[in-house]
């Protein structure tokens, strides 16, 4: 009896009864209906906007009617792509920013990856003292939004180019522009932020390595350096590569830092150049640039999967839960301790200190003498301003600030509730649909926003919603809170659905099947079994999304109008003015707010390392 192993089911003729029962089976199951609507939603929110933007780059817009002789509104054109790729301007609008982006991406990666990896190794595998405190402190800089770090950098290094002095200029140390602004500053600030990727990934990988593997090397006679090079390093290499790709992709796509530190001296990267085009014109060129950025990001991520995908699956977890033995680093530990302390001072303590102090100064860079300190940036009002150059009230007397604070809270709460709910639902669909076409499709659709730099993603929504479409069926949402909300929700889908998936995977399908057999309807199963069990994961997912949205700048910069300013954007605006004290004060409010949120999130078991930059 030799039967073929592979054979599909017999195709059966379609009869009336069959069709009736089939339709009843599909429609009678609310799960199918939910899957159907989710797919439609994802399609409308992700696929259609991308296609719309793509189409927009080939169609003549109103602003360019005069530039393109003989063109009618809505004509097909290659004008924008030619403008970007093959015009006299190409060098300055495309290649130069592209080169800048690459330089920044390269140096950030080359510096941040070893830094994070070494820190991770010290924290996980060495016997360096004070680990508990140190490993907490090392992760703190990551919680600080990168644009806050840029403000701190300015507080230290600012020079006459931007009007008010920074700490060092105030001390009489002349700071050249190349140091205060531009690539050096951008790279330095980004390194202080993105080292966290490599730290988190490498420490996760190191934790999963059974120390018996290293001990075996020791027994074979290898010394510490050999063990490190021949055993430990190859095992964490996949994690390092992953972190490198993430860092490159993130630093190339990042807007906030580059705008804060580059625009003042007209140092543009792809992201900042793109925003200029989208906010001015020709917008089509900006859209084309953002498509290029998306392709670039997709390319790096696929390269990651190609390179790392295969090797990712080292079965490094040992069978026994033995405590891993730490490697003694002897006298070197004191040197390394100084190194870590130095790093923490430079990355966290000093910038934060300077930032806080500057918010109390009357003259920035004027020293910390009592005569130069005031609470003006916090609670002052213009009629009592110590300087005529001051343009705003102190933030707590400033209606713009109050509105931005309320906007931020409103946006974060509504967007993160929506995102977290959708995330759980999408996670539910992709876990229950594992291996089925719709599960895979949902997973892939949800993944798309992850491929796009935030600023490019915003450009897509800008292109989609800056005008009425389908004869007014889709209204123009530009300048509305709704658009900012929508973009925040969809951009965080990949993250939320990943946490939803992880959450749902913990709820075995058998728990649901047991209820199904007991006669519980779909909604009753969701209400009585899934939701009560998913609660904790939901809250921690919610908090992480909340924090991420609260500190977001890149994503919303393009879509901002004064009425909708959030704290991040207001600080960004103020930092460009002659009065950085208010921007500093806002950044500090932001910092406190975020640290508070992390505290709360931690109580629900949220893992900071799972949050996004």
């Amino acid at each position, binding site marked *: 009896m030799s039967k073929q192993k592979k054979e599909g*089911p017999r195709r059966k003729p379609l009869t009336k009864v069959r069709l009736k*029962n089939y339709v009843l089976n599909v429609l009678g199951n609310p799960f199918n209906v939910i899957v159907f609507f989710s797919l439609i939603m994802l399609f409308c929110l992700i696929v259609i906007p991308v296609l719309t933007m793509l189409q927009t780059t080939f169609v003549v817009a109103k602003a360019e009617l005069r530039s393109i002789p003989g063109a009618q509104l809505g004509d097909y054109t290659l004008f924008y792509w030619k403008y970007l790729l093959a015009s006299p301007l190409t060098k300055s609008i495309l290649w130069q920013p592209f080169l800048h982006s690459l330089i920044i991406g390269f140096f950030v990666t080359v510096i941040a990856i070893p830094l994070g990896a070494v820190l991770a190794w010290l924290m996980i595998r060495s016997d360096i003292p004070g680990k508990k405190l140190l490993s907490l402190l090392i992760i703190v800089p990551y919680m600080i939004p990168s644009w806050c770090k840029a403000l701190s950098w300015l507080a230290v290094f600012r020079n006459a180019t931007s009007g008010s002095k920074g700490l060092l200029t105030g001390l009489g140390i002349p700071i050249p522009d190349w140091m205060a602004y531009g690539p050096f500053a951008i790279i330095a600030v980004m390194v202080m932020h993105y080292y966290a990727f490599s730290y988190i990934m490498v420490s996760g990988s190191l934790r999963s390595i059974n120390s018996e593997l290293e001990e075996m090397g020791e027994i074979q006679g290898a010394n510490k350096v050999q063990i490190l090079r021949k055993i430990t390093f190859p095992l964490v290499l996949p994690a390092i590569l992953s972190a490198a790709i993430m860092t490159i992709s993130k630093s190339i796509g990042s807007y906030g830092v580059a705008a804060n530190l580059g625009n003042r001296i007209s140092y543009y990267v792809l992201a900042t150049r793109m925003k200029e085009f989208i906010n001015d014109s020709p917008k089509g060129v900006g859209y084309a640039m953002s498509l290029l950025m998306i392709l670039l990001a997709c390319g790096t991520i696929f390269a990651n999967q190609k390179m790392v995908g295969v090797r990712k699956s080292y079965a490094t977890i040992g069978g026994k839960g033995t405590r891993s033995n730490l490697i003694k680093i002897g006298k070197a530990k004191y040197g390394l301790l100084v190194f870590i302390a130095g790093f923490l001072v430079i990355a966290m303590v000093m910038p934060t200190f300077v930032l806080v102090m500057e918010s109390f100064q009357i003259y920035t860079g004027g020293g910390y003498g009592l005569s130069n300190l005031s609470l003006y940036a916090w609670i002052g009002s213009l009629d009592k301003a110590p300087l005529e150059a001051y343009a705003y009230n102190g933030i707590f007397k400033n209606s713009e600030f109050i509105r931005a604070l309320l906007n931020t809270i409103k946006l974060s709460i509504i967007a993160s509730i929506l995102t977290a709910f959708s995330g759980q639902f999408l996670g539910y669909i992709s876990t229950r649909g594992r291996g089925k076409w719709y599960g895979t499709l949902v997973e892939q659709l949800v993944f798309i926003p992850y491929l796009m730099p935030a600023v490019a993603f915003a450009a897509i929504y800008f292109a989609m919603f800056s005008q009425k479409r389908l004869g007014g069926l889709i209204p123009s949402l530009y300048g509305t809170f709704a658009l900012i909300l929508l973009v925040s929700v969809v951009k965080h889908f990949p993250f939320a659905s990943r946490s939803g998936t992880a959450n749902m995977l913990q709820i075995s399908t058998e728990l649901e099947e047991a209820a199904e057999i007991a006669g*519980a309807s779909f909604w009753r199963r969701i209400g*009585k079994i899934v939701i009560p069990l998913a609660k904790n994961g939901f809250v921690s997912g919610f908090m992480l999304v909340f924090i991420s949205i609260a500190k977001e700048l890149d994503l919303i910069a393009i879509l901002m109008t004064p009425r909708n300013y959030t704290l991040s954007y207001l600080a960004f605006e103020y930092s460009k003015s002659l009065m950085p004290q208010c921007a500093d004060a806002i950044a500090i409010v932001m910092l406190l707010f975020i640290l508070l949120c992390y505290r709360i999130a931690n109580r629900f078991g949220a893992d900071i390392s799972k949050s996004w930059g």
Partner: protein
Amino acid sequence: MSRIELEHIDKYYGDNHVLRDINLTIEDGEFMTLLGPSGCGKTTTLRVISGLEAPQEGIMKMDDHVVINANEEFYEEPSKRGLNLVFQSYALWPHMTVFENVAFGLRIKKFSRKEIEEKVMTALKTMRIEEYRGRYPNELSGGQQQRVAIARAIATNPKLLLLDEPLSNLDARLRIDMRAELKRMHQETGTTIIYVTHDQVEAMTMSTRIALFKEGEIAQIATPLEIYTNPVDLVAADFIGNPRINFIDATAIYENDTLKVKSDLGNYEFGKDTMKEGEEWPVGTEFACVLGVRPENVDIVEQDPGVPFTVECSIYASQPAGSETIVALTAGKAEFLAIQKSIADYAINQKVWVVLNPEKMNVFNKDSGRLIKLAALKTSNK
């Protein structure tokens, strides 16, 4: 209370044909075990019966009421089939107490508060866990969780109870206790039970009948004793019994209604009356066959007893285990095991004699692997 019929059930996962033409009738009140190695389709069959999986082909009836008709895409909902299921992982809801777990199905069926209390307590008492009613599942041991899972399944008085490897997560001693518990519960409630396991001892000790699965097909349906005595083929014979059955390579010729077998364990002749009907074997020409000898049907003696069917062999290894001794022997090229129901110890390479019982031997056709000569269910002269 319930008779289940499966007719021509076929199930595919994509192109993977996991159930092949399953035909099975389970009589009312039976304890039917689906037995087989992992991945042979027994759990899938159980899930098809429960309604959690829909097969692409076939019909299933419960008490002559059609619950699956794949041709018409008709699949009755699980909750309307009047059955309940105990999962391998127990699937106890961790956020509900023992009482709430058991009461869940009753609440959905909208019983009154008093009835629920009564039914839950009856179920808990049947499983002897009434004192744990207020505990959460993670506060119970594995065995207690198992009892809760069964209590939850029987609280709704299902016509049919499905058990999916319910004992596989328990330690060896608890497993023996729970076997007795399940058997008692079956007799007390009279419910029809379908029980999935890969453990042949569980199947042997508890079932009224066993359906032996092999690669998505049912290889044999029979009582435990029949399946043990006359397994339908080499694979089934190998799977059932611990220690395993001995296979001795041999040659045979069938002439004059007699099967003559030559092997390192002696030569035997079997009459037509012991041959299995409906099987095929060559007539008049020599063919390869396999002798099946259960280890307990091999008697070891230290002196030549001078009786028929005695073979001289040598001891390969001896493993005394208290109540019994497992002895490995060699005779010519044949290696085989014997179980002695006594404490005995033999020296390695010691010369001994074994006495065999041809009535209790199986003969398999080596080409097809199928059983051709039956062993007697009862001993006639020994």
